[in-house]
């Protein structure tokens, strides 16, 4: 019985979250708040991936904004072309460019290709980068710094390519989402539901990953990489797999962010945005199943509400959150709560 709870307890928790996000929230929240919740869900999807890479795999990915951006921009390019109509080209290329569209935009007219690209592009990018990094056994702080530098460079590149990516302004003014008018409140709710559903889907996926042998291997690699080598596994491959999955999740989050926020711009994907994603994961508990997602939702909510109430103090909150959580609860608030609860409920039992 206990092992059943251990196995399926998390799944029940995911189901509860699913009901909350998909049934309760649409019923009680205003369209504006629901749309915001949709954005938090997008960050949460990316956060689930960070939990996998960092919490379970020990890779502090400080540049997830890059993959968030790849998905976001891929989706935004499609929406932009959809808004421009068949044969049309995005307005900003007419305004800021010479009125021609770079060839690599063309495939994004196809919805199917776009969906494919949202998965494939980050996977390929992460695989190449990860291969280069992990095979050379670059890890720890070096890895973190390199990924953060990557986010800086990515944003710089976007800002500098005005005619191709809209530069600092990013891409916005989308009207349709795969044929659905984005201004229609019913459709907005649908887009929200897709984002929330994808979040649940990602959670189920990592749940399965965590209980699989791969999940055990990932923890093993995190804790004793050399030892894993002497089990006949190349730890680089284990880490690479987690890194790629995390990248794809970030990309999915970004892809849904574009239609929900109505915009994707360099400031949504730069180093600061990447750190913001990390904050949620750290707060919620990096190694837990639901920790990163709940943390990201909380930080997203905090960013909206705190900046409404204390516009100037938001940065202090974010900074203090990092300091307090990492210093006092390195395993995240959720684990601290969980530990306290266990102490209260069954004080004598050893933690498994």
């Amino acid at each position, binding site marked *: 019985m206990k092992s059943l709870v251990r196995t399926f307890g998390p799944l029940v928790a995911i189901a509860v979250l699913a009901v909350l996000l998909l049934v309760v929230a649409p019923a009680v929240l205003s369209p504006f708040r629901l749309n915001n919740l949709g954005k938090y869900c997008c960050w949460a999807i990316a956060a689930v991936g960070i939990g996998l890479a960092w919490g379970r795999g020990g890779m502090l990915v400080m540049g997830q904004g890059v993959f968030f951006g790849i998905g976001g921009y891929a989706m935004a390019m499609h929406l932009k072309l959809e808004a421009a109509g068949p044969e049309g080209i995005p307005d900003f290329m007419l305004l800021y460019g010479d009125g021609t569209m770079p060839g690599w935009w063309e495939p994004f007219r196809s919805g199917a290709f776009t969906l494919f690209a949202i998965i494939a592009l980050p996977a390929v990018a992460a695989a190449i980068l990860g291969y280069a990094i992990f095979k*050379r056994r670059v890890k*720890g*702080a*070096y890895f973190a*710094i390199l990924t953060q530098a990557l986010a800086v460079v990515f944003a710089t*590149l976007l800002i500098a390519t005005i005619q191709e990516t809209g530069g600092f302004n990013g891409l916005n003014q989308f009207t349709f989402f795969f044929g659905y008018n984005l201004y229609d409140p019913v459709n907005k709710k649908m887009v929200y539901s897709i984002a929330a559903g994808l979040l649940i889907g990602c959670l189920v996926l990592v749940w399965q990953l965590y209980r699989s042998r791969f999940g055990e291997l990932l923890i093993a690699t995190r804790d004793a990489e050399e030892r894993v080598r002497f089990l006949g596994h190349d730890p680089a491959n284990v880490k690479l797999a987690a890194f790629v999955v995390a990248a794809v999740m970030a990309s999915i989050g970004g892809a849904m962010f574009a239609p929900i926020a109505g915009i994707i711009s360099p400031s949504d994907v730069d180093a600061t945005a990447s750190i913001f994603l990390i904050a949620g994961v750290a707060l919620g508990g990096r190694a837990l199943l639901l920790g990163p997602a709940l943390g990201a939702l909380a930080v997203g909510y905090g960013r909206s509400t705190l900046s409404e109430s204390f516009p100037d103090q938001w*940065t202090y909150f974010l*900074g*203090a959150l990092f300091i307090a959580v990492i210093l006092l609860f390195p395993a995240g608030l959720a684990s601290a709560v969980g530990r306290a609860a266990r102490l209260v409920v069954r004080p004598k039992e050893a933690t498994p």
Partner: protein
Amino acid sequence: MDSFTTPLLAGTATGALLLIAALGLALTFGQMGVINMAHGEFLMAGAYTAFVTQQIVTNADISIVVALPAAFVVAGLLGLLLEVTVITWMYRRPLDTLLVTVGVGLVLQQLAKDIFGAQGDPVRTPTWLDGNIDVFGYHWPYRQMFTIVLAVMALIALAALLKYSAFGRQIRATVQNRDLAETVGIRTRAVDRITFFIGSGLAGIGGVAVSLISGTNPRLGTTYIISAFLVVVAGGLGQLKGTVIAAFAVGIATSFFADWTSASMAQVATFALVVVFLQLRPQGLFVVRSRGLA
């Protein structure tokens, strides 16, 4: 303009600036294993010290000379405070020091904004730095030469401290074998603190140099921190030699890339260069000890 001289000289100055920032990191990261993302904000603190000094010592010719030691002390004390209150609890968690100091950096930036305003404050260039010398058509500003001199002096001072002073021996001993150092009577905790003070103080000096380029603003540190870390990573830990070469290489490469393409693309190209370089030499230019970091 000579398309060789200008990027070379300007890049050398950029490299010098990176070197000052990276020297401090080489101490705190390379020697102590602390990844201090707030190092950039210590740079910022140095720049603001230059500004405040000018408010007090209004003669810009003198104030910059006063600002250098003042900035060293201010940034150093900030570093010391950080070490005593936060870092000291996390020596075994290098990745967590990274995240905590990200938070510290955010707080310091906002503090600067609240104290000095989000607008940059001006720092006047002393008259003795106002001017340039014509080198093959490049009007090489005295200010850039000053930066280079400053970096070289900081380097020499640091190298001499480490090599010849009793305290330098204690730092080196602590880095090489902390337990052994403790058991020959070195108070390694005190050594840690003073090392952190010096490393952070160097950032303050870098801040004064930066203030001569761009005045002050709260985001000033973020501009340099990543490049400085890349320099330390590419240089390899434990030896100043690698940091020096990497700093100038990155600075000069960025300048040449900027000359050939654009400043934005230069950032991209330099990053690509560092990644490729780490592919070839994952340990950086010089390695003294194995990578102790997680």
